């Protein structure tokens, strides 16, 4: 998030797109509700009539995967109606002229045909966002899990740049991170393109710094993503033959389950570290028992870049050990030096020494969780709000974006849009919430949410079992008739093992990030 969570109580206009925040980030959503109670207005763009939609001033039930068209048309209206913040554009940005010329062709009427919402509503949304003082954007995986995920994010940046809604209280562009430490995994350099602290691996200076720190030469070229790695498992040329997976139930969470299972099975050596024997761990040659939350000391970073401490409260079961200890032991036994860590504190402090955004932090300093990175040196108060004075790279760059259809679109064979997501009461593959007493009282099983008109047309009643098929496979699932789903679009979560929806997904990937288009999958539904 560019802005701190507390800023969520202060926007004049809220633009929530592709975020089912009351279910996926409920505590953050309470702050938006407080802003609304204070008089803030809200635009919600989401194919499903989620709770936020019922609180919105303008609700845009756009067709899945049509976000870029909506955002281009909003930029068009903001430019046409003179809502551009010229002062900000001139002082802080680059590429504004080209962008403002580019958007002249994308009228609300054009977007209405793609997004399947009235042009007048797009106009209202654009003017509301453009006039907000300030306006804040919130998004989640509804924006990123598309083949055009990067385009979606850049389109949102364009809106914020052209209206000057960056670096101000109650404004900004705010992705809500979905996992407790997914931000931290990136902070720590567990990505193929960056060392810890988002230092690019293809910068020779960084490469030399880490080669020296780790005592061995490291490639100065980017690694491959997990998606590519799974594609290359067991291949003769450039193949991946051994994999170390920590705490991820890859075969259930990733798209195209059958492909993923096949990939892991074709490895010579698969080592999994986890707290349960997950479907993924079942495929491993060795499984290590890790300590869980509540059993280990450590650090995690939240969605507002706040670096916070986790603490051990109880003893782990049996002989379970911390992940860092297990990985360090494997490295040491391979003869790799530099893994002589005695406690979590030493690991974190080593990270701080190598990461410019953590340079002012150490284990003791973050005891109360008061710092949001970047914290460039000791004594620095941290950075709750990014881009206040200047952008990291100097000027904020506009991007020229065009609309593209999803990787697969509905057809005679697969005439219904499937979109997937989470539910309030369960988390991911239920390895945790499924083992917590009482949760099943609130959410006993998975259902496929179908619009009442569709249910009537397809001859389905509440609870009816259907077979849902995509180009990759099929699953069986009971129907829940609900107005939450728009006509022609169905929804389910990926939480329940008996409804492995990721058998169906995997139609395409964003070319830059290789994030899968989990939010769009044409399907066929047949009554059983």
């Amino acid at each position, binding site marked *: 998030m560019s802005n701190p969570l507390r800023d969520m109580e202060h926007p004049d206009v809220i633009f929530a797109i592709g975020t089912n925040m009351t279910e996926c980030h409920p505590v953050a959503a309470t702050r938006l509700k407080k802003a609304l109670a204070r008089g803030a207005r809200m635009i919600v763009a989401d194919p499903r009539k989620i709770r936020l939609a019922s609180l919105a001033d303008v609700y845009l039930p756009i067709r899945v995967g049509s976000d870029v068209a909506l955002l281009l048309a909003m930029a068009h209206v903001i430019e046409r109606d003179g809502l551009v913040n010229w002062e900000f554009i001139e002082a802080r940005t680059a590429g504004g002229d080209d962008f403002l010329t580019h958007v002249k062709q994308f009228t609300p009427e054009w977007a209405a045909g793609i997004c399947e919402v009235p042009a007048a509503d797009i106009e209202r949304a654009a003017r509301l966002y453009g006039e907000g003082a300030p306006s804040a954007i919130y998004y989640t995986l509804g924006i990123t899990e598309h083949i055009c995920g990067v385009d979606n994010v850049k389109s949102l940046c364009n809106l914020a740049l052209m209206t000057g809604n960056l670096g101000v209280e109650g404004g900004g562009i705010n992705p809500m991170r979905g996992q407790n430490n997914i931000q931290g995994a990136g902070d720590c350099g*567990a990505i193929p393109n960056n060392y810890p602290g988002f230092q690019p691996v293809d910068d020779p200076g960084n490469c030399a710094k880490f080669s020296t720190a780790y005592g061995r030469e490291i490639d100065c070229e980017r690694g491959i993503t997990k998606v590519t790695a799974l594609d290359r498992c067991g291949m003769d040329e450039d193949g991946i033959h051994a994999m170390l997976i920590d705490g991820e139930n890859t075969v259930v969470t990733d798209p195209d389950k059958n492909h993923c299972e096949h990939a892991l099975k074709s490895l010579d050596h698969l080592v999994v570290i986890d707290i349960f024997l997950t479907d993924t761990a079942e495929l491993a040659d060795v499984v290590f028992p890790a300590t869980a939350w509540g059993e280990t000391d450590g650090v995690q970073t939240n969605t507002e870049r706040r670096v916070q401490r986790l603490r051990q*409260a109880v003893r782990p079961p049996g002989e379970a050990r911390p992940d860092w200890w297990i990985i360090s032991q494997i490295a040491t036994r391979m003869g790799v030096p530099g893994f002589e860590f005695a406690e979590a504190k030493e690991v974190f402090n080593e990270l701080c020494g190598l990461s410019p955004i953590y340079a002012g932090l150490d284990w003791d300093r973050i005891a109360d969780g008061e710092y949001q990175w970047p914290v460039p040196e000791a004594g620095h108060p941290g950075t709750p709000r990014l881009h206040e004075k200047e952008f990291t790279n100097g000027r904020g760059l506009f991007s020229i974006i065009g609309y593209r259809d999803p990787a697969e679109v509905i057809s005679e064979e697969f005439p219904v849009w499937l979109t997937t997501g989470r539910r309030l009461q369960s988390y991911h593959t239920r390895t945790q919430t499924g083992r917590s007493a009482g949760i099943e009282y609130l959410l006993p099983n998975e259902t496929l949410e179908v619009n009442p008109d569709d249910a009537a047309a397809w001859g389905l009643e509440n609870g009816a079992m259907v077979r849902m098929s995509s180009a990759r496979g099929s699953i069986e699932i009971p129907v829940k008739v609900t107005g939450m789903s728009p006509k022609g679009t169905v929804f389910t979560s990926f939480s329940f093992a008996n409804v492995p929806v990721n058998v169906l997904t995997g139609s395409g990937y964003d070319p830059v990030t290789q994030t899968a288009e989990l939010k769009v999958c044409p399907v066929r539904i047949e009554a059983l």
Partner: protein
Amino acid sequence: MTGLREQRPADRVLEMTLDGEPVKFTEGETIYEVAERHRKDVPTLCYDPRLEAFGACRLCVVEVEGVRNPVASCTTPATDGMIVKTRTAILEKHRKTLLELVVSENRNVEVDELSGYASQELTELVDRYEARTGRFAGKQSGTTNDADRNPFILRDYDNCISCYRCVRVCAEQEGDYAISVMNRGFATQITAEFGRDLRDSQCTFCGQCVQTCPTGALGDKKALRDAETPGEVRKTRSICPYCGVGCSVDLLTKGEKLVGVLPAMDGPANEGALCVKGQYAFDFVQNADRLGKPLIRRDDGELHECEWDEALDFAANGFKEAIAKHGRRSVYGVASGRAPHEAAYTMQKFIRAGCGTNYIDNCSRA
């Protein structure tokens, strides 16, 4: 009850006399807030600093010079030159009488501390004012809802004192309006829409009503399963393990058992709020399915428990063999978005220092 406190201008510094001492305050502060800042320990039951002041319990009354009757300090703004007394014989007698009345309507005054964050407030005040006199023994108000079988929220309204904190936290903090009030006076009853179970209302089971209840009328059913478990309740500050908001929590343990979770009122991300997962989905940690020994795949094709040394050597040798046979770019590391920094950091170091590649990723692409 829907509005929220406005941001206060903090520029003008004013002065009042509090129990004989001159004290400074800023415009917009209530007498109660000024008194709290000076540790006057004015008693309250209907007050939650996160909520709009309500002025229902009348325990926070203070004497203001020039005003004939005591005023509720929580709803009265401090003004320049005001002379306030927070603890006089008359006020203390008044407070004791109020507490005697409150207690007379309740079945229990002692409640288990596992009931919730604020559950000891009434008990502590009754002890402080020695109000267990039984002077007003009579009818009890509130009817416990035993019919709601939900596994999380105990609805023991026999212990309700109609402070409305649950109703207000649901409306003001959560914006859910799942809880409301039925009837008036002695017959006042906290209820959900149409008297139905919470599951059939707008309730999201965030547990905020439980945590603000000062009497244990609303209790954490899940934590209370361990009311009889021996041992002191210990608190450990940590962060919720679910989404990326990063809510601060206090883990409640008895001995080596994790028995519950409390929201941290001073948590920077959540300021006391939690959701159903953070509040109630904690016991996966001590589930019987947890792995406690390394597992290794033997010749029969099955995974078997083994000792750490064997498993670690086997894992290390497998990577060494892959590098020897297929080169250093044949090894890949996947870090977790769920495990702490130390896991992700050592994982990327394992790949970079161990293989000299950047063949490392995490689960954010899924």
